């Protein structure tokens, strides 16, 4: 497996919309292996999207076990992912391998349902929440040419998280 090099902002290739994957062959599986290796080698190591390594196909890999242990889906390979449903909103601070040394607040859905295909082209469905849901949404944004920089919100946005004020 190979660790691929990561495009960094302001590289315009990060803003390209990725194409759907139509061929599920050994070459795809080899690429997904390399992409996964690249993710684990990165500073966050919990998620990556194909456009970040200059491959403009709708492929996302997420594995938040380093953060959540077994309380998550483990390694998820999401090919042609679609957000089927979402619920709730939360502010969280995000950084990105493609935007070194900068972090900012972003609003994401708290719970999501994602439909995708796996490396064999089989249909899969995942329900994610919290940190895992945030990682999936962050990576899926790359497929449409969005970075978290496109979604930054002010600190003051936190004021509206009233339901999180537990008594």
């Amino acid at each position, binding site marked *: 497996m190979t660790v691929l090099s990561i495009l960094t902002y302001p590289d315009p290739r990060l803003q390209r919309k990725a194409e759907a994957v139509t061929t599920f062959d050994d070459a795809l599986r080899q690429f997904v292996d390399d992409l996964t290796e690249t993710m684990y080698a990165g500073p*966050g190591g*919990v998620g*990556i999207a194909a456009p970040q390594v200059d491959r403009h196909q709708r492929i996302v890999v997420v594995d938040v076990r380093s*953060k959540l242990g077994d309380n998550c889906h483990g390694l998820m390979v999401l090919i042609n992912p679609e957000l089927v449903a979402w619920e709730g909103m939360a502010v*969280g*601070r995000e950084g990105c*391998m493609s935007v070194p040394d900068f972090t900012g607040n972003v609003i994401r859905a708290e719970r999501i349902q994602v439909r995708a295909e796996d490396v064999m082209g089989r249909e899969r469905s995942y329900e994610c929440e919290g940190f895992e849901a945030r990682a999936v949404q962050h990576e899926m944004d790359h497929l449409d040419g969005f970075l978290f920089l496109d979604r930054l919100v002010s600190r003051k946005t936190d004021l509206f*998280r009233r339901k999180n004020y537990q008594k």
Partner: protein
Amino acid sequence: MSQALLTVIGEDRPGIVAAVTQALFTADCSIGDASMMRLGGYFTIMQVIDYQRDLGYVEMALEPAIKSLNLRVHLDPISSVALKADLPNTRVTVYGADHPGIVASVTGALAAIGFNVVDLESESSGGVDRPLYVMVIQGFAPDGIESVRKAVLPLREKEGVEVGVHPIEAAVF
């Protein structure tokens, strides 16, 4: 390259930021960390600038903006080497019916546990008869978020305000 802290205050009106930053640009200054916001009826700017020549030259460049917009400006030279500071790890949010003592009470409790305030924003709003006070504090809690909860959550009762304590974790994806 030298650094200074520039403070600008003036009655709020459109064009203050543009006039000040344009003047700085023409004086070969570049802007670093900045806070620019309206406070009451005034617009305030505090920013770190890198300047090439001397501060007198910067002041001279700002002069037309100072005159035309009736601004008060202050320049303090600062050490170019930023002190290594701890990144904020905790956010404290407070809101409730406005009354004297909220800030003193919350920040006093934070100071007692060695909490270093990095950023505090607050706003008085609501009607005259029902004033509302909201405040967001970000800072570094050396003993972690639980110490902050223990210190400030009792103030809900004492001050009659809502207090929230949240971790600030930057997740790198």
